[in-house]
């Protein structure tokens, strides 16, 4: 019998218990499968339980440890992946009814790498249909039902990585893999109160992942803490011949903390137009950050460039190209969300010159953002301007008047391929979590993760357990 507290242990602690023989990989895997079915089911977090595969992997991992083969920190650790990663012989639905019977005959590179690292794949986790590329406007945007945050099941988990966010937050798995085109890791991390890392574009191979926007899509970990995210990133990063945009870059994350103080800037307008609790929690976070970082006087403006317009144009055009057959055949009407049934058509009508203009402007954006970030280890802002929206309202009706703050930070970072980490930093309306995001230069994941780890050393928000996991 696995104690409830074990479900919330960080990866290092789980690994230590497994290695010392205090925790059985097979028992832990079976318990996670049960919790995914029960708790995950109540949160609409799971598409497919991979029970048979998981138990076989657990047996192999156990045998290997007995034989002295330890694959590292992920050896024997249960996990889930967003259901846009191909898994051989197991349905990969992309969260969309028209693809609910789709089965690939190969594993995505990230799935292969997790297996090589000894992780146990327990579930394909829920997501917003087609990763949200067609403009969904409320939480009812997946054939598995709206993703629910375990802090209050009347509210959304955030998307498009709905299942990875809620499953990790509810202790169903210690970590999961999500994806972000523009906000799909940072948002559910904030709304579910977990730590989410959006890596630099190209850090993690996209091979075998559903393509929404090949020039924007990124895969990254969602987990209990920044340290957990690092351990997962270390296992999944690196160049892959099947993804020509992927590269290998050093990950110099050191368990020993740096002796120099970090330099942090606050994004200009970060707390304008955000909910009062979001603002207060952000300001409280600054006090904690000041213990180990110098926070620059005055706010730092992001370049005055149309990041949102660029992202919108690129997502629309690339998404329509990726799913042209679905749209033009009319099968798109099988999508769950009404807005998604028409959004794809709009993408088919984006003028080529607008798309190319967006790609050309991205060059300017890269240079301008690099200049802005040059003097800082990180720029920070609230992860989202509000807590999670309710599942029974359209997004634009959920919190009228609170659409400011970090509104530009997510599209700006994604447009130029920058990394970001979101960590929980308190609670707001209806007992829902809020988050703070650390954004940095390209390839600076290790700096952001150390910053987030130091913040989590000073705070307890990432250790809180949600109450809405019971029936």
């Amino acid at each position, binding site marked *: 019998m696995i104690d409830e507290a074990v479900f919330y242990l960080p990866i290092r602690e789980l690994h230590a218990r497994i290695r010392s023989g205090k925790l059985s990989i097979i028992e832990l895997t079976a318990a996670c499968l049960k919790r995914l079915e029960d708790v995950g089911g109540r949160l609409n977090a799971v598409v497919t339980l991979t029970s048979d595969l998981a138990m076989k992997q657990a047996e192999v991992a156990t045998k290997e440890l007995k034989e002295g083969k330890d694959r590292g920190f992920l050896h024997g650790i249960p996990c889930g992946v967003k259901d846009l990663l191909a898994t051989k012989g197991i349905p990969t639905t992309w969260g969309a009814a028209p693809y609910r019977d789709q089965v690939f005959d190969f594993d995505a590179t990230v799935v292969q790498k997790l297996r090589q690292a000894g992780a146990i794949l327990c579930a394909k986790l829920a997501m917003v249909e087609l990763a949200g590329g067609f403009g969904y406007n409320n939480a009812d945007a997946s054939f598995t039902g709206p993703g629910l945050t375990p802090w209050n099941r009347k509210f959304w988990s955030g998307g498009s990585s709905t299942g990875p966010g809620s499953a990790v937050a509810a202790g169903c798995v210690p970590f999961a893999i999500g994806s972000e085109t523009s906000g799909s890791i940072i948002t559910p991390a904030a709304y579910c109160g977990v730590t989410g890392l959006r890596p630099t574009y190209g850090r993690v191979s996209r091979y075998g992942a559903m393509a929404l926007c090949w*020039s924007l899509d990124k895969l990254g970990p969602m987990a209990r803490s920044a340290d957990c995210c690092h351990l997962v990133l270390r296992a999944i990063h690196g160049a892959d011949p099947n993804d020509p945009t992927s590269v290998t870059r050093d990950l110099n994350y050191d368990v020993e903390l740096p002796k120099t103080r970090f330099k942090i800037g606050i994004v200009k307008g970060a707390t304008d137009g955000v909910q009062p609790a979001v603002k207060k929690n952000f300001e409280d976070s600054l006090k904690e950050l000041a213990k180990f970082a110098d926070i620059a006087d005055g706010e730092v403006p992001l370049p005055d460039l149309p990041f949102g317009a660029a992202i919108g144009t690129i997502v*629309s055009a690339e998404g329509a190209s990726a799913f042209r057959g679905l749209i033009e055949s009319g099968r798109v009407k099988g999508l769950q969300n009404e807005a998604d*049934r028409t959004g794809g058509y*709009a993408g088919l*009508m984006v003028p080529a010159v607008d798309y190319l*203009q967006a790609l050309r*402007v*991205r*060059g*300017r954006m890269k240079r301008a953002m690099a200049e802005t970030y040059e003097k800082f280890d990180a720029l920070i802002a609230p992860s989202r301007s509000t807590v999670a929206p309710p599942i029974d309202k359209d997004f634009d009706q959920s919190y009228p008047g609170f659409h400011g703050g970090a509104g530009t930070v997510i599209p700006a970072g994604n447009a130029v391929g920058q990394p970001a980490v979101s960590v929980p930093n308190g609670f707001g309306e209806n007992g829902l979590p809020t988050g703070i995001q650390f954004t940095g230069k390209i390839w600076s994941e290790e700096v952001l993760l150390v910053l987030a780890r130091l913040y989590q050393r000073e705070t307890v928000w990432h250790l809180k357990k949600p109450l809405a996991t019971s029936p």
Partner: protein
Amino acid sequence: MHAIPSRRQFAQALAVLAGATALPIAAQAQTPIPDAKAYAAALETVIRHRFGRQLTDDQVKRLQATLINRRNAGELLKQVELANGDDPIVAFRADLP
């Protein structure tokens, strides 16, 4: 659902739409967006021509609104001054992976 527009209606609509993007860049930046009503009507005609069989009237309206937003996004992007040598950010490699 509406009937598919006639060839003449479609040609008129295309003329309105083309007028929005065919101007030289410098001139476009200073030229207001074409009459919004005419643009919306033109869009509706094109939408019905291309996808009318698949969409309800409500969906046509929704799509029309989305496309107007897209058009506004295009205008915003156009305001960024680019040099001739500002290449688009695309990854093409002649060699196989």
